[in-house]
């Protein structure tokens, strides 16, 4: 276990508290940089999706995790970013310009959503953001002159400084990774400066934040705008990765996936966004595996335990039917959310911290170390 002796105010401010962090993240970055030369193209493609989901996860963490404003409308922000890119591409606007324009436009729309959301908290805010997402989905489907409606839009290959960057090239992966790293660094900077502290203050007690001089309304709108803008940037990358976008890609389910990203990862740290993104991207291959291989394996097991060929075949077709049920994905998402909220509210990153602490304190770790306890009850709160 390392003991930190702080000798300078700088020690409270710096991003890497000690050299161990530099080594760990340096190695991680190096691994990510050589990944395209090692991993298969399928895994690389998954890694790009992890990057994009992690960017949205960080954006959602700023709004939900740190400012305490829940949102189920982030699929809409992603859609606005994606469609802005696709639309501006038709006028041959260069990538850097439409990339920034998408972020800016989404940020402005985010601020516009933030204003009516000022008076809403909790479940009402969730409903408002869902409605916003549904409105955007509908507009994308109906505004055919711009969005081509339900036919969708083809996104041309990304061209960076005159060089084509295909969506499965290492360069595109590096681009996504760079955006992710910049997003994380920017967010960390924000969190260690007055704005980030104001966000956390609003999350924990609006009354106290106000009486300390925080303009709560302004900072909530700021939080919405920043979160939306980052999601807009992710939308551009998302559009390029898919190379085709249509309204039914940006449904409520996608917003729920983003919520799962931060819920599973852990809402109190940016690590959560990345861990959650890895988790959610892994679910799809897992479901495919469930669909393709599980029926055969289970039938094989049944056969070895003495089931007749007919019964085994029966089992196989039943399991196959179950695995390809329409709502299975949604059901699995639901179960995951419930289980995590009940048993691991701090998420995967919280679990990692607990494991780390267990080894640091071995053999003194107490099971109750992380038990949530109420020390006193707030009798009267000014809300």
């Amino acid at each position: 276990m390392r003991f930190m002796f702080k000798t300078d105010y700088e020690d409270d401010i710096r991003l890497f508290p000690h050299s161990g962090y530099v080594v760990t993240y340096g190695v991680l970055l190096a691994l990510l940089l050589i990944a395209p030369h090692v991993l298969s193209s399928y895994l690389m493609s998954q890694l790009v999706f992890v990057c994009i989901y992690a960017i949205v996860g960080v954006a959602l963490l700023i709004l939900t995790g740190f400012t305490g404003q829940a949102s189920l409308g982030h699929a809409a922000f992603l859609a606005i970013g994606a469609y802005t890119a696709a639309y501006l591409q038709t006028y041959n606007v260069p990538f850097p310009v439409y990339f920034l324009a998408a972020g800016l436009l989404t940020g402005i729309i985010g601020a516009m959503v933030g204003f009516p959301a000022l008076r809403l908290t909790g479940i009402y805010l969730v409903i408002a953001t869902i409605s916003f997402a549904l409105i955007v989905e509908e507009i994308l489907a109906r505004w055919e002159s711009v969005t081509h409606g339900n036919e969708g839009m083809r996104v041309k290959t990304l061209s960076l400084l005159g060089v084509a960057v295909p969506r499965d090239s290492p360069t595109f992966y590096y681009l996504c990774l760079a955006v992710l790293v910049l997003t994380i660094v920017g967010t960390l900077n924000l969190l260690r400066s007055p704005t980030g502290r104001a966000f956390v203050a609003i999350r924990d007690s609006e009354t106290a934040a106000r009486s300390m001089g925080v303009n709560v309304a302004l900072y909530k709108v700021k939080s919405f705008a920043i979160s939306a803008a980052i999601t807009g940037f992710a939308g551009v990358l998302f559009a390029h990765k898919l190379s085709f976008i249509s309204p039914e890609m940006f449904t409520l389910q996608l917003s729920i996936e983003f919520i799962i990203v931060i819920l599973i990862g852990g809402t109190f740290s940016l690590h959560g966004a990345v861990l959650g993104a890895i988790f959610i991207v892994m679910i799809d291959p897992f479901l495919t595996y469930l669909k393709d291989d599980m029926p055969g394996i289970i039938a094989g097991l049944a056969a070895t335990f003495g089931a007749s060929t007919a019964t085994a075949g029966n089992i196989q077709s039943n399991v196959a039917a179950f695995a390809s049920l329409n709502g299975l994905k949604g059901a699995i998402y639901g179960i995951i959310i419930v289980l995590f909220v009940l048993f691991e509210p701090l998420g995967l990153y919280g679990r990692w911290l607990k494991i780390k602490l267990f080894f640091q304190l071995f053999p003194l770790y107490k099971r109750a170390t992380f038990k949530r306890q109420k020390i006193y009850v707030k009798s009267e709160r000014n809300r």
Partner: protein
Amino acid sequence: MSYFRAENLSLHFGGLKAVDAVSFAVEKGEILSIIGPNGAGKSSIFNLISRIYRPTSGRIFFEDQDITEQPPYDIARLGIARTFQNIELFENATVLSNLLVGRHRHSTTQLWQELLFLPSVRANEKVHRRRVEQVIELLDLEPYRDKLISGLPYGVRKVIELARALCSEPKLILLDEPSSGLNVEETGDMSFWIRDLKNELGVTVLMVEHDMSLVNRVSDRVIALNYGRVLAMGSPAEVQQHPDVVAAYLGA
């Protein structure tokens, strides 16, 4: 003109007159306590000053400026800080970041500068950190700097709330029952600190308090309230002997 002045301040909830035409003035550098039975309207007056409630009628002046219509977040910028009766700390943040929020009214950096963490932001952060450290030293909070609020005992939280208010370098500080929930020893510390505020930092203190020993030890003047009205005003001894105050407390 007095330093801080409330004129005919009223707050009505329907037919209930929580605060009823209360007028008082606070002189620069004094400690003024407001006492009264439960429901007398003491905390309501604080909430009117910090603009959590909007007064039904009446005006509030601070340094000859009418602050009745100021938005709540501007009150802190003018130099009025407060603590809460039931502790309103930022539970899931460290003590240090709680105190740094107290510095919010002094932050001057823009959003884009903070995103890049420019040298100016870094320099400002260090200044904030240094000021916070002075308050930590004053209130003996050194052992708790990096602890989360949610794991701290009540007495320490109470001190941290005072510290957070002090970090904003207020000219006038509103203390809402600083001794509630504290034991005798902690109340003793609190009374020393309140005197220190006045004598060393030159802060004017307006305080709501039930503990008469604390009131007697620190206050220069006392106001007694009941049913939203002022019963008596004067030195601690005068007010305690005032027949109306005795009647309000003992029900004679």
